[in-house]
């Protein structure tokens, strides 16, 4: 579903990604862990081209996406994204946040989108907040709305960029529950996270990224119980 070949990314003279090769198949839940500044968020943001790539190729459903010829807006509709800082639209009600893209991009009529929005808000447990404005919500509620908003475009892939890092500890659980449910429904997902317990429980594969390369990858039990790479061991010893 996603094929990444020799992906490199420079910010000026700073080389953040130094050649990443990955294949992500349909239905996989890939958790990306690693120290701060290792390039894991950059990697995720390259996948939907919020970051331009310096070198290498990214294919989504067999289509090369990091080229000016690609219709990036169309490709992004297949990939929902959830941000660390939620990035809800504060001037729109919760329901409007969810319906904005499907209505503007004409993938649904307004009535269909409204109905779908209520269904999605039910799914994340916030149907009673449909008419509220984002500023009146707690962090956990905001992030659940953000997930519903991303799902409204019926994406094939969901990208999560540290979805719980900006939350108060008591709100982490409610967001992780929603993501977990989504994983169980068979959605293809790539999750950058610092929640090791969560990665272990939900992921089908774990990538440990450090210094711009994938240092180690494997099933959660391989990575967490039996890490081979020295850096992985060092990192896990600090966070577990």
């Amino acid at each position: 579903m996603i094929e990444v070949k020799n992906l490199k990314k420079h910010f000026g003279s700073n080389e953040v990604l130094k050649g990443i090769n990955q294949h992500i198949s349909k239905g996989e839940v890939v958790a990306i862990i690693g120290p701060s500044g290792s390039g894991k968020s950059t990697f995720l943001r390259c996948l939907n081209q919020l970051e331009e790539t310096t070198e290498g190729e990214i294919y989504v459903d067999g289509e090369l996406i990091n080229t000016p010829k690609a219709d990036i807006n169309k490709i992004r509709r297949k990939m929902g994204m959830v941000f660390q800082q939620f990035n809800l639209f504060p001037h729109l009600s919760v329901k409007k946040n969810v319906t904005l893209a499907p209505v503007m991009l004409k993938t649904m009529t307004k009535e269909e989108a409204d109905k779908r929005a209520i269904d999605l808000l039910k799914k994340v447990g916030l149907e009673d907040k449909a008419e509220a404005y984002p500023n009146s919500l707690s962090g956990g509620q905001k992030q659940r709305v953000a997930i519903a908003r991303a799902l409204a475009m019926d994406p094939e892939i969901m990208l999560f960029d540290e979805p719980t890092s900006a939350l108060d500890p008591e709100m982490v659980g409610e967001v992780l529950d929603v993501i977990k449910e989504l994983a169980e429904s068979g959605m293809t997902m790539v999750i950058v996270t610092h929640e090791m317990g969560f990665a272990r429980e939900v992921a089908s594969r774990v990538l440990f990224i450090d210094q711009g390369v994938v240092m180690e990858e494997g099933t959660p039990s391989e990575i967490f119980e039996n890490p081979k790479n020295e850096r992985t061991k060092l990192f896990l010893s600090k966070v577990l």
Partner: protein
Amino acid sequence: MNPDLFLQLDFSSWYANVRNQFIRCFIENDRYKLLVNGIGVTIKVSLVALLFGLIIGMIIAMCNLSKKKPIRAIGLVYTDIIRGTPSVTQLMIIYFVVFASINISKWFIAAIAFGINSGAYVSEIIRAGILSIDHGQTEAGRSLGLGSFQTMRKIVLPQALKNIFPALCNEFIVLIKETAIVGYIGLMDIQKAGDFIKSATYLPFMPLIATAIIYYVLIKLLNLGLKKIENALRKSDVRSTR
């Protein structure tokens, strides 16, 4: 002489004098009509100039925020020239040079001139407003598959406009007062009407004070209206339903 009588005499002569001045300035030859018509001219020029200013300001702001250097240069040169020259000079150049041989109503030419002038200032306000919106908003819009123009129109601009609304009101008020120079191209606005009455009667006090009062009341009314709009815009800020 009885001091009471003195006061009384003085007051009645003062009153007679004021009354006489008032009649000469405003009633004689229906001079008040000059001021009333002047209000119409001022409002007409200001409103249309505001509209042009917003359109031009938006375009120039987009130029200034463009990733392409030549387009940024257009915006830069525009603001540089307009802000670097007096508006009265611009007005006269546009009337006597640019539109010299074209037959359009004077007030419309004035509106264009003030629109061009105001656009330079409005563009900077809009640019600041757009930059004040967190880049995450744009990213969220783009990640949903919206194009950059759609994201700007539906997500960034509505928030930016709310933030810069007070500054835009300020600019509009400045614009109204700025139009007091349209007399230079022979338009009879409020200021010119007051000035005309002053010259015709040799009485400066009444017409000039009247001019000031009219401008003040106009802007006061405008302020009240704008405040209402601003409050409506602030709707989504209310933190109520937690």
